[in-house]
């Protein structure tokens, strides 16, 4: 359940950006979440609803989650493959000399504000 801690981090960051941009209500927060980031999107959304509605700035604010695919690079053959399907072992050359290229991110992409 580190989703709750992550939600508190998102709120802290969004509050700061809202203040810098003189925004008093945010209608949506868009997140890029990697497939292997260990964040469970529906738990994140549950925690978000609970915590965001306690803030005037974020009352009713929607959390939109883009799940970004995880890709691993193989040093054995130089190719890339889908991490979730094959894990640590390269499906092309069976090398274990591989590393995660992307898919571990938990990033706030942008916020949406109704321009009245």
């Amino acid at each position, binding site marked *: 359940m*580190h989703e709750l*801690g992550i939600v508190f981090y998102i709120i802290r960051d969004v509050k700061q950006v809202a203040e810098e941009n003189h925004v008093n209500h945010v209608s949506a927060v868009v997140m890029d979440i990697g497939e292997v980031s*260990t964040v469970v999107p529906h738990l994140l959304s549950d925690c978000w609803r609970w915590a965001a509605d306690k803030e005037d700035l974020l009352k009713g604010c929607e959390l939109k989650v883009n799940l970004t695919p995880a890709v691993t690079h193989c040093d054995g053959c130089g190719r890339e493959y889908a991490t979730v399907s094959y894990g*640590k072992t390269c499906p092309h050359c069976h090398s274990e000399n591989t590393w995660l290229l992307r898919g571990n991110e938990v990033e706030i992409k*942008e916020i949406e504000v109704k321009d009245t």
Partner: protein
Amino acid sequence: MDEIKIIEIKKSVFADNDQDAARLRKELKQKGVYLLNLMSAPGSGKTTTLIRTINLLKDKLRIAVMEADIDSDVDAVKIREATGVPSIQLHTGGMCHLDAEMTQQGLDNLALQDIDLVILENVGNLVCPAEFDTGAVRNAMILSVPEGDDKPLKYPLMFTVCDTVVVNKTDVLPYFDFDLDRCRANVRLRNPEARVIPICAKTGEGVKDFADWLLQEVRNWKQS
């Protein structure tokens, strides 16, 4: 009509914590205090291992312990009674991990000028604590034999962030399908640099190896 304005942020949610952690590490370096972040699943023997380790080191180093749990102070009391070193309890208020800010708040309650080594016993959990840099100099984890030698495969991040893996409860190796060599190979897959130290906290076997590693670490940190 209302139009939607988009403000781009593109920032990792961990960025602020990573900064806090780096700042804390720098402060600890200036004060000559070594912080070890010790993680594991619940029931792996963290507290028993700590008591043994502290009793081996307390004549050589000034030690303090911070126990992080969701609730209760049984571990802090147990450590204090069994070792005599200062031990404080941190409550995470339902959260499954500690971050750098919470760690800093805990350290503020210790007399750091009289301490060489602070051991942070993180919340028992193989997933969440690995995500958050606490500001510790090193991460270590305890894997107990009954949990199985496949855990580095199932909890990759935990084993990637740990510099040392202590394999505890080696006295029950004959009763479990746990292969130390296979465990070492699995740890290496996640972190080729990590050292594996087999111990039995109950009998004390191997604990000196862990204590010696820690002593050397603290000395290096204070000298460099």
